[in-house]
Structure formats: structure tokens, C-alpha cells
């Protein structure tokens, strides 16, 4: 039985600059995989490759047993099955919170407006944002905006959720509310890939941790193994740098 999402021998270069070199990772269903690594280690590029925003130079990506990296894949349909949230919230400023959430269900998945509206409001209710449903995004705090962005990403019932540095632009109090939301989604069984610098959160939520260094999977394993007994010098250096910066 293969994993829900598989990356096999992924290679990506920008011109001469080799960014990802022979990266292979399995993402089992309902698991949370946390990707850590310094800036420039290839984290963001890896995340971008996962929903085909970057063209691969070699290797293969499978979603639910289907090769989505094959030439001629319907990229829009793949993205419809993968929810993505990024550091910049990118809510649509001209739409209310509810309309932000229902846009993709209505346009991409053909859900009727009243049904989509009801689902969106139910989601907002569950995550404590019911009173913001008819506000415009600019009236929300950063944490609220990012939570809406995450709700928008899961409103289409994706098979996989990609979270790339979703808390990097937020202050600690707001980070907490976003992380709570993510933990709840995890409990409900959402499969997710998380790139983050929040190591405390990574320890708590991760089923496995992947340490990326110079475009390669340098070390990977359970959170206990990675944070408790790092094997390679590079990982030790990375963790001690985080420790010094007060992030661990």
C-alpha cells in the first residue's frame, strides 16, 4: 500500500543552481509531516513543487496513486485536490470572509451558493470566527486573516493541505490561535505538510520530521529522534542555532 502522497527522486534546478537534489519523501494519509531547514535549504521550492507551481527537472510526484507530474496532467484539477496556504494570507480584499471561502467551491467544484454559504458559515462557527463571516478581510487581525485563509483552503475538502510558513508574519499571540486551528484540522484527520520555524509546534503536531539541507533530505524521523537525538552535525548545528535564537 503506497502512501497518499509520494515524492520520488525529485530534482529541481534554477539554471546552474541545483535547489533540490534527489528528494524522496512519503506522506501517509492522515499524517502531519513537518519540513525544517535553514533559509535557502530548498523548503519553499519543495512546497511549490508539490502543487506544481514549479516544473520538476526530474522525478515523480504521486497523489493517491496517480502521477501528477506526468506531462499533460490537468494541473487545475490537481490543485483542486491540494489545499495551499502561505505566509502572505492573500485573501481577496474585494470579497467578504464568506465569499472568500465559497469562491473556489462555487467556481471550481460547482457547489450551489446556498450550500457553499452554509458550509462556510459552519466552518467559521467551528473555528470561532462566526461573527466575522460578513466582514471584509482588512478589518480582521493578521491571525484571523490567516485562519480564514486556512479555512478557505480546506473548504474544498482537499486530500492534502500544504502550509508554508503560515505563522511567519504573525506575532506570538496570533501564532497560537493559528496553530490551534491547525491542530484541530490534524485531529480531524487532514493529511498535511508543514514548513515551519515553530519548533515547539513541530514537536507537538508532527508524525515525522524531515530536515532539508542543501537541497537534500539530510535526516528524517520521528520528532523525538530529530529533536532529541540528532545524528548529523548539520542538524545539530541547525538546532543549536535555533536554540540560541530562542526558537526552541
Amino acid at each position, binding site marked *: 500500500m503506497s502512501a497518499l502522497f509520494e515524492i520520488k527522486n525529485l530534482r529541481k534546478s534554477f539554471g546552474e543552481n541545483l535547489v533540490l537534489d534527489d528528494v524522496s519523501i512519503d506522506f501517509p494519509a492522515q499524517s502531519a509531516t513537518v519540513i525544517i531547514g535553514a533559509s535557502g535549504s530548498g523548503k519553499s521550492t519543495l512546497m511549490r513543487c508539490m502543487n506544481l*507551481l514549479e516544473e520538476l527537472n*526530474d*522525478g515523480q510526484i504521486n497523489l493517491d496513486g496517480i502521477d501528477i507530474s*506526468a506531462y499533460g496532467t490537468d494541473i487545475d484539477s490537481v490543485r483542486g485536490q491540494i489545499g*495551499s496556504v502561505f*505566509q*502572505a494570507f492573500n485573501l481577496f480584499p474585494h470579497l467578504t470572509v464568506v465569499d472568500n471561502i465559497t469562491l473556489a467551491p462555487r467556481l471550481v467544484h460547482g457547489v450551489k451558493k446556498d450550500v457553499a454559504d452554509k458550509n462556510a458559515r459552519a466552518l467559521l462557527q467551528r473555528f470561532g470566527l462566526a461573527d466575522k463571516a460578513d466582514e471584509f478581510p482588512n478589518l480582521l487581525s493578521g491571525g484571523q486573516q490567516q485562519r480564514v485563509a486556512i479555512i478557505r483552503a480546506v473548504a474544498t475538502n482537499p486530500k492534502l493541505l500544504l502550509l508554508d510558513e503560515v505563522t511567519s508574519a504573525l506575532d506570538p499571540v496570533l501564532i497560537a490561535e493559528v496553530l490551534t486551528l491547525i491542530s484541530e484540522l490534524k485531529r480531524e484527520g487532514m493529511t498535511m505538510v508543514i514548513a515551519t520555524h515553530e519548533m515547539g509546534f513541530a514537536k507537538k503536531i508532527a508524525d515525522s520530521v524531515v530536515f532539508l539541507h542543501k537541497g537534500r533530505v539530510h535526516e528524517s524521523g520521528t520528532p523525538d529522534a530529530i529533536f532529541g537525538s540528532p545524528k548529523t552535525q548539520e542538524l545539530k548545528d541547525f538546532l543549536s542555532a535555533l536554540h540560541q535564537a530562542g526558537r526552541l
Partner: protein
Amino acid sequence: MTYQPSALQLQREAAKRRASRRSTLIALSSTLAVGFLLVLVITGAQGYEMVKNSFFNWHYAKQAMPSVFHGLLLNLRVLIIAEFFVLLLGLLIAIARTTTSPVLYPVRLVATIYTDLFRGLPLLLVLLLVGLGIPGLRISWIPNSAVVLGTVALVLTYSAYVAEVIRAGIEGVNPTQRQAARALGLTQSQTLEHVVLPQAFRNVTPPLLNDLVSLQKDSGLISVLGAVDAIRAAGIQTAQSFNFTPYLVAGALFVLLTIPLTRFTDWLTRKQDARQRAQGQW
């Protein structure tokens, strides 16, 4: 160990090449089909022979070429001078309209009235008013050459358009940029010169060039004042032969004149798009 593409990758690249070849083939055949259809419709029209003789006559085209081309040189001179003054005046008006100081209220008022007036007035009307009205005042030091007055009319109208484009650019610069510059101790005018205007111009280059392309062809309108530009020269030829080909020659020359600038605009727009994509996350 050097990198060897996997069989999978080679397969994927081959599929990509095949698809690209197929796209080229489809583009080619659809272009041919459309072209063939057009030729069929036009040559099959009842008046085709007549139109061909009076608009596409090679003999008259050759005959008209030298004088029309000579006229075009006048257009070229006019538009180079007009473009310079349009940009200058447009910039000044745009800056005037974006000032906030209460002392400068009259300046803002005048600038606003100016843009409202000259954007609203048809260019032809401005040309006639300036070209025939000003000489009528009989003020001795004002030149009454059709070329000079025509250029003035073009500048008056187009600087109103250009001012609005530049103003949109200035207002489009994020206010935090202005605040950041002021926080560093730059004065209001230093901020404008070194921080705001460079970004403003970058944002509005495509619409700005679009206005300049439009000015290039509208320089032909000075012919209504009697200046012997390309269109006037063509008109003179036509009056002698009763054949309209010279107009077509002038039209072709105008198109040739504007093509370099339009291509440049396209290129610049593409370059900016690429940069914005590179900046934007996802």
C-alpha cells in the same frame, strides 16, 4: 557523480516536445485557414476591382512616395518636440494635482480645471481654436505658423491625458514608501524625486507609452491647419490624380512609425509582469 536524467524524465521531455510540435502545427493551419477565408471574401466582393484601382494602385503609390515621405519628416519633428513638452507639462500638472499643502490650493485648482478642460475638448476643436484663434489675436510676438500652433494644440491636449496617467502612478505608490522616506529625514521634494516618482513611472510606463503612440499618429491632424505633413501631402497628390492610394501610403508610413514604440511598450510590459511574478509569493 554527474547527473543523468532518469528514463521517466526523458519520457516527459519527449512528450513535451511532441505537444509543442503539435501546437505549432495547429497554429500554422488555423492561420492559413483564416487567411484563405479573408482573401476569398475580399477578392470575391463586387466592388473589389474598383477599390483595388483607386486605393491600391502601385503607380500612384510610387509617384506619391517622395512627397508623402517628406511630409512625414515634418510629423516626426513635431512629435519629438511634442512628446518632450507633453511629458514635462504632464509631470508638472500631475505633481501640482498631488500636492496637499493648503497654500497650494490655487495651483491644484488650476491643474484640475486644466485636465478637466483639455481631456474633455475634442483634439480637432483644440487644433482649430489654437491654430485659427490665436493668429486672429494679432499679437506680434506669437508665431502664426501652422506647425508651431498645431504642436502647441497637441501638447495642450496630450499633457492633460499624460498628467492623469502620471498622477495615477504617484497615487499608486504605497503610502508607507513615502512615510519610510520621510522617517529617514528626506524632505517632501526629495521624497518625491528619489522615492515616489521612480516607482510611479515604473508602474505607469505601459499606459504612458500608449499615450505617446497615440500622439504619434495624431500628429497627422495638424494637417487641418494647413501644415504640409504626410497626410496633407497625400491629400495634394490625391487632388491631382483623383486616386486615393497616396492616403494609403501615408497610413502605411504612420503604422511603420508607431510600430517600434508599440513593440517597445509590449516588451517593457512583459518585463514588468515577469518581475512582479518573481516578487509575488505564488
